[in-house]
């Protein structure tokens, strides 16, 4: 039982990290950024390239090196996210919602197959991997590396929440989410804030990409597709546009998958997890901690 919970929480923290970017972008400009999962892929490849450039690293230095790579990668994917917004989304911000959605799908394919052209179709394997010994805690087997990764994810999420709720920047984001026109009348530089939102969301996805590369080892150009879908689901379960809700949604989806596999077997896992999603949408369309609708009106 504890093993199932731990498995779910571990996978769920990846979902949550990726889902946050989805949720933030949706919260602010009501765009479902389908290319978000591919920024996760981009992060994994950026980390791979940086590690390759650094060269051989002794295993005792693995963790500090990976953390440094994580920071650099977050900057790289963050900038990529900003560029994506500038090139693909900003010119269409006043266009019908459908055009934006289609552009997002196009951007996703462009990133996937652009990476395939650049790095090849063969999966790559991280030169530096977090393996480590496993320990038993309350009947669950977990490794130090897993604890570190969950720790990093939690720190990033807490940092994000502080940024959004406690800083000027965060207040500007929330203001734009409520009403972009009025915000700009109040002297908020809407474009700059949206760019920064993309930067933060993409940086988090990039961080998740590096962490996945370092822990699982295998990366390939299509790795972002499925997790993008899962992250979207997590965001909807938790309440898209709501940051604590999205984090919760990621963890809940991870747990649903873990228990779904246990109760019904592997082939029914997705049926179970997505069945719950449908249930959520019918019973509670705003998600677990859905945004307060009254504020919108």
């Amino acid at each position, binding site marked *: 039982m504890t093993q199932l919970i731990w498995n779910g929480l571990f996978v769920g923290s990846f979902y949550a990290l990726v889902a946050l970017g989805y949720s933030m972008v949706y919260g602010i400009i009501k765009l479902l950024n389908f290319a978000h999962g591919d920024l996760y892929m981009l992060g994994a490849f950026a980390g791979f390239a940086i590690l390759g450039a650094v060269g051989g690293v002794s295993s005792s230095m693995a963790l500090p090196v990976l953390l440094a790579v994580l920071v650099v990668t977050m900057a790289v994917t963050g900038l990529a996210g900003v560029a994506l917004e500038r090139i693909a989304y900003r010119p269409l911000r006043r266009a019908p919602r459908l055009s934006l959605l289609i552009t997002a799908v196009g951007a996703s394919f462009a990133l996937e197959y652009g990476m395939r052209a650049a790095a090849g179709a063969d999966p790559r394997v991280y030169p530096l991997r977090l393996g480590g010994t496993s320990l038993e805690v309350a009947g669950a087997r977990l490794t130090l590396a897993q604890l570190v990764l969950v720790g990093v994810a939690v720190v990033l999420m807490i940092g994000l929440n502080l940024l959004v709720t406690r800083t000027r920047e965060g207040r500007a984001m929330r203001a734009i989410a409520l009403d972009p026109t009025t915000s700009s009348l109040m002297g908020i530089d809407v474009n700059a804030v949206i760019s920064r939102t993309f930067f933060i969301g993409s940086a988090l996805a990039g961080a998740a990409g590096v962490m996945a590369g370092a822990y699982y*080892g295998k990366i390939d150009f299509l790795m972002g597709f499925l997790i993008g879908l899962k992250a979207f689901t997590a965001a909807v379960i938790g309440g898209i546009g709501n940051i604590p809700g999205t984090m919760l949604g990621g963890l809940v989806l991870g747990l649903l998958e*873990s228990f779904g*596999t246990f109760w019904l077997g592997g082939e029914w896992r997705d049926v179970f997890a997505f069945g719950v999603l449908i249930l959520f949408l019918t019973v509670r369309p705003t998600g677990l901690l859905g945004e307060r609708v009254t504020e919108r009106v």
Partner: protein
Amino acid sequence: MRATPLTSIASLAAVALLATGCGQGLLGGGDGGDTAKTNEPIVLGMLIPQSGSEAAIGPYMSNAAQLAVDEINAKGGVLGRKLELKTADDACDAQSAAAGANKLVTEGVDVSVGGYCSGATLPTLPIFGKANIPMIIPAANSQELVDQKLKHVFLINGTGTQQAAAAEKWMTKQGAKSVALMHDNTSYSKDIALRTQTLLDAPGGPDTALIEAVTPKESDYSANITNVLAKKPDFVYWTGYFQEGGLIARQLRQAGYKGSIMVGDGSVSPKLVEIAGPEAAEGVYATMTQTPDTLEGAEGWIEAYKKKFGTEPGPYSNQAYDAVRLAAEAVGKAGGTDGAKVIAALEAIDGFQMFSGPLKFTPEHTLSNGGFQILIVKDGKITLQDSLK
């Protein structure tokens, strides 16, 4: 449709080829009848995944096929005619495969030598069949392909039934008691798992602990592995592809599993070892048809391949190479590219030397000897463990 720049270049090139082909046809028309055809190349068509999830496999197969074409052409071709290879992308996906097959048919392919993903190969059977084009399928080997009982379809890879038999034989030989079967829910992988289960169900020998299906293309299989380990198996058999296979082997070991791990032929690749990491991959068994590595006298072939393409041959390079050689042999024996005659020539072949041994087709058009053997990862290299003779 995911149109990539690459495929659009390829289709442009194809159009160009088609245009020149027509030109020759018109000019040749004046000479009348068959004589014109004798100058035209014999066109071999190859459907392989060049995009999508299995895109990594495509070059292994098309390179090897091109190698065979070049070798045969260097020796003067077949019946005085040159061979020409045309490839199309099936993206490991039924719809793209059907489109690709139609494209090859319009390009005037004489023999099909492609087919990797069983699910994508299945819908192409009637398309080539209607055009009276014989198919030599190098890799796809789901029993579903055989069950269609089509006259123009020949499989030169061992079938799922033969692979399951080899797997069961090795599990028994290893004294396994309780076997966990893991597959990825694709036609090919599930087929082998279910056939292995049927064999294990027979009295005596090992028993099936459970069948676990995973979702391909994910990174975390811990939930599936927790399920598997709850049944305490002493043998795990993964029948899917290497990307997941590497992760599953690694995650099984991380979860403290100490028993044997075996993978199916779709997982036999150096990448498996790389993804699993050398420690987790060590001692992993595999059911596999003959590969260049496990066959004596193939060193020269590997050298030639490396020299030409700058990379090592990979999974199904040898089968693709053999498919082209077999097609050339059959066309030569048939005295032309007439579909019915080539099919008859293929059926009559006896003892043609391939990597998998001397070839003779069964009445079902499969290999009479599947040639499955057991490989093992030793010091990070995949080597022969037992030829199950």
